[in-house]
């Protein structure tokens, strides 16, 4: 049995009023791929920061590469071979790839002057280590997320690295990019480098990791061999709740379609898309990142108006040229990036809920009816079980799942007929994800027509009655969800 590379034992850490970690023990061996999972706020980032020396633990001990530490400092951590790749990759978008790669080692060598030749040499060597091909003179801001990540990884490898820690490395990547990343992780493993990565995504945990550790509310709830883990146990460990995934069955589909699209298209995005949507139905639209699925979603809400084809709502031809006309036709849209597009994070939860129906709540000349406002807010907080002590708190105090419920509440307050959801559970933890799915299914059964755009195949399969698969700007198949499976969808997508 190989020696442990890292062993952290009995780690406690509290912040004012919050016990972030309670008696957590964690070990990793050289060349091991270890997944750290847990819901938001469970203490994953805190654990990472203790290992990398950013925080000192309240108590507990750490041993790395045979050396004991009461607490490790960030410099000691780097020197002994621990590298952290943060979610934002710590890059300089305004500088070239070369500088981004060379800065860390130049600064570590305490250089005062810039030698551009030496920087180029360092950068060339750094990307060669993972066979990453990129223009060294390109600005990092112009690269894709995956390329920025590759830069962060190459940079981490420049030092005598023994452990690489990645905080949620796959969140913003496409399927193909995740594949590339995993290949690189496997190569690093061959070289004996241990990888600790944070992920909530079940399929990724299974695909790549050897061992797992799951935290809940700062406590270690399970750790062991990934081979012994299954989906059910995983979500149980994460949430402490048992879930029975309920496959959606459309109970009352209207006989007439509420929305019909006929050969709609946008130059350079998608073409010839035709489908009917009935009340009570949930249609899933899936495809790779550049398949045109997002543009299709945006066109249904008028953000990107179509240039060919036509819409019919309740059998009548209509034009949807901007979000206002879409809302007038009782269409709502839940954006992909709820943080930047769907919510006013600094405003209160309450105001975020009522913002879209503000016209209905005013009595006279723009003055709000406060009684009506309070009732309306109370109703939605309850209906969607938004976990907050006080709806007047700022929206950013909520977890991802709860924020998503608010965006939902905002739309439902309008009594819509159609709701388009783009990636409704991206970045949401398992418990909330399950709840959101339940809400969506109930909404459909109460007569709402829903369209879910998502590349999370289990999500689409579980919650939709029909699935449209898109590829290179076209709908390539229209599947009955009850008869489809992941393999089948993938084969159409790729």
């Amino acid at each position, binding site marked *: 049995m190989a020696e442990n590379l890292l062993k952290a034992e009995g780690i406690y850490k509290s912040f004012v009023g919050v016990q972030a970690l309670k008696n957590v023990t964690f070990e990793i061996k050289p060349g091991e791929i270890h997944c750290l999972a847990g819901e938001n706020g469970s203490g994953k980032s805190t654990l990472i920061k203790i290992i990398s020396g950013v925080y000192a633990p309240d108590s507990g001990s750490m041993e790395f590469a045979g050396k004991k530490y009461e607490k490790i400092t960030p410099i000691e951590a780097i020197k002994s071979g621990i590298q952290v790749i*943060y979610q*934002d990759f*710590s*890059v*300089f*978008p*305004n*500088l070239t790839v070369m*500088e981004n790669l060379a*800065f*860390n080692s*130049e*600064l*570590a060598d305490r*250089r*005062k*002057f*810039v030698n551009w030749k030496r920087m180029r040499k360092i950068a060339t060597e750094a990307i060669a280590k993972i066979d990453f091909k990129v223009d060294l003179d390109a600005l990092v801001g*112009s690269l894709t997320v995956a390329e920025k990540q590759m830069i962060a990884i190459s940079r981490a490898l420049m030092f005598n690295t023994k452990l690489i820690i990645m905080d949620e490395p796959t969140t913003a990547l496409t399927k193909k990019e995740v594949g590339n990343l995993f290949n690189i992780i496997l190569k690093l493993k061959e070289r004996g480098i241990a990888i600790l990565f944070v992920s909530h995504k079940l399929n990724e945990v299974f695909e790549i990791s050897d061992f797992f550790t799951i935290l809940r509310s700062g406590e270690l709830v399970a750790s062991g061999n990934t081979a012994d883990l299954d989906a059910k146990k995983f979500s149980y460990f994460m949430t402490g709740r048992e879930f029975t995934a309920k496959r959606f069955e459309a109970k009352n589909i209207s006989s007439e379609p509420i929305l019909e699209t006929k050969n709609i*298209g946008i*130059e*350079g*995005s*998608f*073409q*010839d898309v035709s489908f009917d949507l009935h009340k009570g139905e949930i249609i899933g639209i899936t495809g790779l990142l*550049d*398949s*045109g699925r997002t*543009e299709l979603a945006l066109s249904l809400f008028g953000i990107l108006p179509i240039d060919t084809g036509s819409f019919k709502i309740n059998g009548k031809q209509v034009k949807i040229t901007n979000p206002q006309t879409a809302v007038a036709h009782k269409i709502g849209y839940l954006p992909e990036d709820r943080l930047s597009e769907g919510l006013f994070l600094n405003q209160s939860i309450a105001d975020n809920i009522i913002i879209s129906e503000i016209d209905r709540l005013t009595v006279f000349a723009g003055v709000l009816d406060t009684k009506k406002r309070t009732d309306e807010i109370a109703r939605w907080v309850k209906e969607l079980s938004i976990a907050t002590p006080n709806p007047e708190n700022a929206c950013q105090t909520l977890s991802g799942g709860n924020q998503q419920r608010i965006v939902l509440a905002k739309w439902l307050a309008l009594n819509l007929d159609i709701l388009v959801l783009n990636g409704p559970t991206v970045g949401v933890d398992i418990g909330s994800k399950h709840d959101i799915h339940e809400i969506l299914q109930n909404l459909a059964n109460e007569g709402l027509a829903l369209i879910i755009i998502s590349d999370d195949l289990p999500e689409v399969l579980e919650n939709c009655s029909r699935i449209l698969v898109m*590829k*290179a*700007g*076209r709908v*390539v198949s229209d599947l009955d969800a009850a008869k489809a499976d992941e393999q089948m969808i993938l084969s159409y997508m790729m």
Partner: protein
Amino acid sequence: MQTSWKTTIQKISRRNEPYVFLVLLALCILIEIRSGQFFSSNNLVDIASALIVPGLFAIGAFLVIISGGIDVSFPALASLSVYATTKFLLDINYQGGVWLAFVIALSIGALLGAFNGLFIGYFKLPALIVTLGSSSVFKGIMQGALNSKQLTTIPVGMRAFGTSSLFIAKNPVSGLTARMPVASIAFVIVLILVYLMMRYTMFGRGIYGIGGSEVSAHRAGFGVRKTKFTLYVMVGMIASLAGVIRVCMMQQAHPTNMLGMELNIIAGVVLGGTAITGGRGTLLGCILGTLLIVIVENSLILIGVPTSWKSVFIGSLIIIGTGASAFQVMRMNRVKSIKIRSKEAF
């Protein structure tokens, strides 16, 4: 080979400097056509001499904006340090060379810059708020403690420096002459030093880095606080240098005469392609943008545009200039269109 040509042209066309240069050229040619006076030797020397003080201020403003900050206090800072220096030298009846004026003014400038740097770098307060505040403080000290009035005479050393010239250009047609002040050397030296610093020292690259992402700079190992502090000290010194040169060239110290310059200076820097959000911009662009403003301020009169229209002209330039750079950003972020495959391909 051909593709590399193409990419080079593409890269250049994405930068701001060529556009500023073209606008500048167009303006010069327009003035030349209308007046026949623009490319005369005396006018060119006049413009170069008018560029010295705004140019120095612009270099300071450029450095701060690159680091992701903003400084609106430099005119007040320069006024205070040069006013205090002149007054002190007059009081002791100093008869020596100009060097002492530079030493004292630059020391005061460093101190006042350190005041900005302390609050911005170490206490992490927003640069705009700090410099708005310090600007008032500097003006207050000048008016309150120093009881500032216009000083109509300046020490002999400063007077001599202000009137000494490198060469004198004479227009053979009109007979008009223009002097190239010795102070232009100071401007060129600062320009070269700052260029070298920004390109060849880790401190300079750190300023770009901090402007791009402060968190990343910290994690990479740049001393963010120290860098910012040093930067504001440096900018205080550059501004004070400009202040001394201004007083020497005008042969009198006026306490409020430089105040209000900050907006046109910052406008010139931004026109030259320096991103107001920090991290992006070149010294060349900064100087071109400032030159554009200086020419508009000094030469519009040559084509018969009344001075009252100057601010309208400058305002429009700023809107067009910043609009153009916003457009470029938009173009870079535009949604990449995807290839729709024909039906048969499936």
